[in-house]
């Protein structure tokens, strides 16, 4: 549909400016949008930075000593010495089981009464039993790995002390690239910026536009000589500016306060951030144009933008471990690409194959959502 408005084209830029000004004033005057654009990102970043953490400083484990032989005590000493374990000692399995149920320990190791005896026999059988709290599966994995490590280390030391011939062993030397100390916050914080951008892009926009529809001011706007492109741009540009400012604040806080290294280029960050914001804003506009009701738009934005960004973006949960159908769905979620790009930009730097792949998808997603919104807005008028 091509229409010509010779008398309007000259004023187009001025009109756009005026609309943007109106939108900006609305943002600045509403304390709740200020809250969401400036205060919430920082609060959220700190919550992500300190609250979500997979690195246990000291695992709470129990030790049930049913044997008091020197060997058993020697092993207990080696556990007490470990900086990774916070050991609660007892002598009663039932009481320790109760502590596990209450969550006071996340696992315990039982040294049975015949520990020393079995140990002396050649090819000794199972003198230790480890029980973990399966209600916390990730922690249970770590309890198993740490206690096993402690057990093997003790054996090696004991063999050395007794002067036994060294057996062939293989040492695994882990090297964590980009993140030598394997701190989970170094990848969680860049990922969490995606969530914050989603909140600003999709949630805030969907609420604002739905409010205009609900109150009838949107109809008033559409009745004025404003063109659809100008209308869309006037909704996009101010929130885009808001989003980019928050993005910069977030990255600044992450780098300077939370000390997450940033190895990529700021220009690329701006480019990819803009593309992601385009898709998030587009989705927010689309949802609010479709529902025209704040209550429903907010719920829809929560379910269509926020939750997928949380769950399906790979920011906390592993995409590769998901079943094929859900893995397929993740390819359609813009947040997935932004999470990958942010983690790579922060930790690995400008790895072009990864970044370009993300950019292409984000361009397509932004185009799709904004285009659909344009179609939807046009239809409703005719």
């Amino acid at each position, binding site marked *: 549909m091509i229409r010509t408005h010779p008398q309007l084209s000259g004023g187009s830029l001025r009109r756009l400016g005026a609309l943007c000004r109106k939108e900006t004033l609305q943002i600045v005057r509403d304390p*709740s949008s200020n809250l*969401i654009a400036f205060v919430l990102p920082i609060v*959220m970043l700190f*919550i992500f930075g*300190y*609250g*979500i*953490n997979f*690195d*246990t400083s000291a695992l709470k484990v129990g030790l049930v000593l049913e044997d008091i032989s020197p060997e058993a005590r020697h092993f207990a000493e080696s556990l007490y010495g470990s900086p990774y374990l916070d050991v609660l000692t007892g002598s009663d399995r039932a009481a320790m089981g*109760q502590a596990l*149920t209450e969550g006071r320990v996340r696992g315990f190791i039982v040294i049975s009464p015949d520990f020393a005896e079995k140990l002396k026999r*050649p090819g000794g059988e*199972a*003198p*230790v039993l480890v*029980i973990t*709290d*399966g*209600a916390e*599966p*990730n922690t*249970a994995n770590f309890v*198993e790995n740490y206690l*096993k490590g402690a057990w093997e280390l003790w054996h090696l030391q004991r063999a050395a002390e007794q002067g*036994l011939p*060294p*057996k*062939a062993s*293989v040492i*695994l030397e*882990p*090297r*964590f*690239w*980009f*993140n030598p100390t*394997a701190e989970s916050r170094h990848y969680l914080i860049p990922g969490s910026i995606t969530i914050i951008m989603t909140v600003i892009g999709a949630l805030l926009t969907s*609420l604002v536009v739905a*409010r205009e529809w609900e109150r009838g001011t949107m109809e008033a706007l559409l009745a004025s000589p404003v063109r659809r492109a100008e209308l869309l741009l006037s909704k996009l540009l101010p929130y885009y500016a808001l989003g980019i400012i928050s993005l910069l604040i977030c990255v600044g806080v992450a780098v300077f306060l939370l000390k997450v290294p940033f190895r990529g280029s700021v220009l690329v960050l701006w480019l990819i951030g803009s593309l992601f914001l385009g898709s998030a804003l587009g989705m927010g506009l689309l949802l609010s144009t479709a529902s025209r*009701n*704040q*209550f*429903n738009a*907010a*719920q829809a934005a*929560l*379910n269509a933008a926020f939750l997928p960004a949380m*769950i399906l973006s790979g920011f*906390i*949960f*592993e995409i590769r*471990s*998901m079943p094929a159908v*859900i893995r397929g769905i993740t390819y359609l979620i813009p947040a997935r690409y932004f999470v*990958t790009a942010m*983690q790579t930009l922060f*930790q690995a730097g400008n*790895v072009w194959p*990864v970044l370009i792949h993300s950019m292409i998808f984000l361009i397509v997603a932004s185009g799709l959502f904004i285009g659909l919104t344009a179609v939807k807005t046009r239809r409703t008028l005719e």
Partner: protein
Amino acid sequence: MVYRILTLIIKELCALLQDRQGRMLLIGPVLLQLAVFPFAATLEVKNNTLGIFNEDGGSESVELLQRLSRAKAFTRVQHLHSDAEVRRAIDRQEALLVLRFPSEFSRNLAANRTVSIQAILDGRRSNSAQIALGYVRQILDSYLEDRQGWSATRTPEFVVRHWFNPNLEYVRHIIPSLVAIITTISTLVVTSLSIAREREQGTFDQLLVSPLTPGMIMVGKTIPALLVAAFQATIILTAGIFLYRIPFQGSVVLLYGSMFFYILALAGIGLLISSICSTQQQAFLGVFSFMMPAVLLSGFPSPVENMPLWLRHLDWLNPLQHFIIIVKGVFLKDAGFPVLLRALWPLILIAGMTLTAADWMFRRRLG
């Protein structure tokens, strides 16, 4: 008085259920999350690519490689031939983990010398990489044990049992957490957003000029929230037991009894938010600003004990954290009342605090 509150409750339920979009939003997200969460929200490590840079080529490394490629953590093995290829595989996230066998690996191992394997891990996914490394270590250990047969220096067996969840299935962690999260969302939405909507549409003034007292309005808004939240929680519990086959160990009465206090605590928060806000947008943002940290710090995404001490103290005020302990305790661990009381009394205290505060704010704004 009871009759008046009852009419308000009926009106609330009608408002929630009258239009199709509203009904959809009450049940749709629950079903969606029930279908997606248990499969998606997992920290298990599966289907990854293992990179191998083998500078050895002897029989020992070949045998070890065969064992590694059978692990469920790695469905694909990528053979790499140079440092540049290793760098490329890790940089582009093609492999989570690259194992580098040094030359002379097989010969040294055969001669009973200690050898080392370099494991290069993608630090962008350090949690998964660490778990994958744990699997590699297990495979390595069992290989060495089989190789040595029964000798005097063999490390004695190490038996592990996972209580409450023998196969460490993530779904047993997720369903109880989901029960708590869904009740949180629906209670807050029903209490605070519905009042904000009435405010914005002007129907709240009509409620105020009716013979209902502010206290009665609060009760009338809380009970529908209780009904909706309990209904949604029941859907998830039923699906967890029958669809996801998680055995329900504890007492249903204890679970619903604790849920009652939990929903009260949240209704207090919802009413408090709605008494401060004058528009739906503000109420929604208020709900969001509470819910987001509450869920993130609840122990669902990562354990509470990993947080720094000051945050753990602050998190004591988070009702969701206590309620997840209760749901997990009853559902998985058959925890009795004395155990649950440790998490229940903070809930009751929080409920008392939030409801009192909401009541005070309501009267102040209306008086």
